[in-house]
């Protein structure tokens, strides 16, 4: 209902703006609005990559510049129709963007500030090439003789309309991305890229797509701007001004919300327009510098960020009053099954995952020295071992975060050793983290919905949120669905990890010390939750130091030491073997 009204209002505004030139407004007003639209298009296109994924690009000037020079050259030397040059400008910009991204996004450990510098450097390289080749050659390109369709009888009005349409298209795209499954992945990348990948988000491909969309719109915007300024030069085009303004506008409006671009762009463009000429231009520039400083220091999430967090807090408070509900949830989870030995499910002998001689070394340290093991369908397999024995490394290897040096990991006829982490997640392998790693700027609900979207279920956003609510109810966190993970305490964050594994619908769940740091009562409810995950048909690898929980939950136990399997079998029997006692207590016990 609220959405419908929003669409209607947006539609009316667009129609009004399209009709506006018919009333013959003064030229300055039309050109002012043109500039607003132009900056909205650039800023919101920048946001699709940089705002949503957190990879701040300072190279937007490059894509914008490619668009400008494409139109300038095609329309003058190529004598091509102006309208036809625009899609070409967008496509060339997108192709260059994707090519750059294909190289840059392969770099591991590329921190945000280095990405920013890299993209800025690319801008200057392109500028140098344009300056020294026939793209520009030095003197710049004049577009005075270009013919443009006369809509409402004036070329200036045509440009106004083109810019308006580009801005609307850009905002609509940003809106769609923000509310789509795709956008959910982008926001997850911004908070913790590694976790996003392990939960099934194809991070590399998503970043490339976002960069492609972003640079396409920047290219089209550049093409229109080329005609608007009618004289294109290298220093003006590939300057630091374009990326700076885009970043500034987005930060002020709120870079993680589609509307932020529109607000920021309108505000800064107005400011720029008011302070025109002589002394005033200088004051305007100083003011922009000042606003940038104040915005970063006092309003790091922008205007929309501020509004969003207020709205979320209100919602969260409303729901938190429902505390009884939370308590009931925990009780239900605890009572789910009495602490009796779990019945053996049918078909337990069928092998779901098989590791064959899996090896992994870090600079000569052998973390996994040839691990071979089998996980049978429907069982809870316990893995224990002293600290540093390779338990977490094994989980990281199975889930694809590390690639083994040798060996095979077979899961449903696929060798996981050769698959990327997001593929492994989509195939049905989920995991939790020993130290919970939630996406800190996403709500609890969104955190749990993400694996439902990108795990084996592959649900769309609405269905994923429904799935997430069920999972949250199951772990007793339904009342905190709108809270941020930072507002949860440790055991709630651990349960959030479990909820993620539940919601993903993974066939194999790797639980990495879910009980560590919990109180005895919390452990009891966690144990019954683990059991209920299995009862839903999942197979579990249970890594834990808490022996009592291991003995209560597992039917089979594997002991690791120095990256090797030193014992395997019935839990109580295994723990009595001399090799195991030696691994834990050292030789002196004898």
């Amino acid at each position, binding site marked *: 209902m609220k959405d419908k009204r929003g669409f209607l209002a947006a539609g009316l505004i667009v129609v009004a703006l399209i009709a506006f030139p018919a009333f013959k407004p003064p030229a300055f007003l039309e050109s002012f609005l043109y500039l607003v639209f132009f900056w909205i298009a650039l800023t919101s296109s920048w946001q699709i990559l940089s705002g949503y994924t957190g990879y701040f690009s300072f190279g937007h000037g490059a894509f914008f510049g490619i668009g400008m020079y494409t139109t300038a050259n095609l329309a003058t030397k190529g004598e091509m129709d102006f309208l036809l040059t625009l899609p070409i400008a967008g496509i060339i910009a997108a192709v260059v963007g994707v090519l750059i991204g294909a190289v840059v996004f392969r770099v591991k450990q590329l921190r945000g*500030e280095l990405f920013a*510098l890299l993209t800025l*450097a690319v801008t*200057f390289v392109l500028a*140098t090439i344009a300056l020294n080749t026939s793209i520009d050659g030095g003197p710049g390109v004049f577009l005075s003789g270009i013919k443009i369709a006369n809509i409402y009888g004036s070329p200036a009005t045509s440009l106004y309309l083109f810019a308006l349409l580009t801005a609307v298209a850009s905002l609509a795209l940003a809106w769609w991305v923000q509310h789509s499954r795709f956008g959910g992945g982008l926001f997850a990348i911004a908070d913790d890229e590694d976790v996003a990948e392990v939960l099934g988000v194809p991070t590399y491909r998503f970043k490339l797509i976002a960069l492609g969309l972003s640079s396409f719109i920047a290219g089209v915007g550049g093409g229109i701007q080329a005609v608007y300024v009618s004289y294109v030069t290298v220093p003006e085009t590939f300057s630091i001004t374009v990326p700076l303004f885009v970043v500034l506008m987005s930060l002020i409006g709120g870079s993680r919300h589609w509307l932020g671009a529109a607000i920021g762009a309108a505000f800064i463009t107005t400011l720029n327009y008011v302070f025109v000429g002589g002394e005033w231009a200088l004051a305007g520039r100083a003011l922009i*510098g000042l606003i940038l400083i104040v915005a970063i220091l006092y309003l790091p999430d922008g205007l929309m960020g501020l509004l969003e967090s207020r709205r979320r807090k209100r919602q969260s408070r409303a729901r938190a009053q429902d505390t009884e509900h939370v308590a009931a949830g925990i009780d239900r989870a605890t009572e789910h099954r009495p602490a009796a030995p779990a019945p053996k499910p049918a078909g337990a002998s069928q092998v779901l995952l098989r590791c064959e001689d899996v090896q992994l070394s870090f600079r000569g340290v052998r973390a996994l020295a040839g691990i071979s093991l089998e996980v049978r369908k429907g069982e809870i397999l316990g893995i224990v071992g002293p600290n540093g024995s390779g338990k977490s490394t094994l989980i990281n290897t199975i889930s694809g975060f590390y690639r083994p040096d040798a060996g095979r990991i077979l899961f449903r006829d696929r060798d996981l050793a050769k698959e990327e982490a997001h593929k492994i997640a989509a195939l049905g392998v989920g995991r939790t983290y020993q130290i919970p790693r939630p996406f800190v700027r996403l709500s609890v609900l969104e955190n749990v919905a993400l694996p439902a979207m990108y795990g084996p279920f592959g649900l769309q956003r609405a269905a994923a949120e429904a799935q997430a609510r069920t999972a949250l109810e199951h772990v007793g966190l339904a009342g905190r669905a709108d809270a941020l993970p930072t507002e949860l305490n440790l055991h709630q964050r651990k349960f959030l990890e479990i909820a993620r594994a539940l919601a993903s619908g993974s066939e194999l769940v790797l639980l990495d010390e879910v009980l560590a740091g919990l109180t005895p009562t919390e452990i009891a409810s966690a144990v019954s939750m683990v059991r209920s995950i299995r009862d839903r048909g999942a197979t579990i690898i249970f890594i834990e130091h808490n022996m009592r929980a291991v003995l209560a939950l597992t039917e089979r136990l594997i002991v690791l030491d120095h990256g090797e399997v030193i014992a395997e079998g019935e839990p109580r029997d295994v723990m009595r073997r001399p090799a195991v006692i030696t691994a834990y207590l050292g030789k002196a016990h004898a």
Partner: protein
Amino acid sequence: MPSASLLAQSILSGILIGGLYTLLGLGLSLSWRFLQVINLAHFAFVFLAAYLSYQLIGVAGLNPGLALLILLPIFFLIGIALQYLLIRFSVNEFASLLVTFGILVLLETLIQWIWSADFRRLETSYGTASIKIGAIYVPIVECLMFFVAVIVAVVTWAWLKFTYVGKALRASAENPIIAGAYGVNHKRLAYLIAGISGATAAIAGVFIALISTLAPAQVVVWLGVVFAAVILGGLGNPLGLLVASLVIGVSEAITMAVTAPTWAPLVSFTLLIAILILRPHKV
């Protein structure tokens, strides 16, 4: 292909401009490594120092050495003031890039407001003096600048490497909490580094006033090339910075001599891109 003497002249000017890059990059490199601050405002500090030198030397008629002595403590304090602001708001590494860019814009407009957008040139008897060795002209002030750059770089390197304070700084950059547990006062060291970074801006500023024409728009002219040198040399590594600056300066100069001056930016930016892609973990 240019003649041998032209090439030799180019290489010499490349080496000398490498000295300037070192002076410009040192403060940036130190604050990036030890303070996690990517200080774009440093370039504005340099030009503020250059304009003040222009005022002190050109208008008030002071000796350049005396001007430097006046400017050093001022910019030491400016560096500390900026660090105070960044600590006060606990600005992270990426946000520091944006905040200091805002400061750069502010200072640039301040400079334009005081000294106008016109070019300013400090006319001195020694500014353009040079001696001729064989077929090559050796500009004296630029040579002096180069030697100062080498001395400053080596002294800073030795200070970081051998003194107790230097070791504490390096420990603190690795892990401030652990270093703190061993009695390293991170905050005081941070202010010291910020002050020293500011002071290097004063040195660079005086030399820029002596050898170059000043205009507010020039504040960002060396930004890209200096970033390339700082990253190529390794953050917080003064000797690496010196070597990288010389490599970039000379390759730029040769590029200019062999092709056209307009191709020069390609060298440093391609190097910068290559190093960021191939060795991002080293930065």
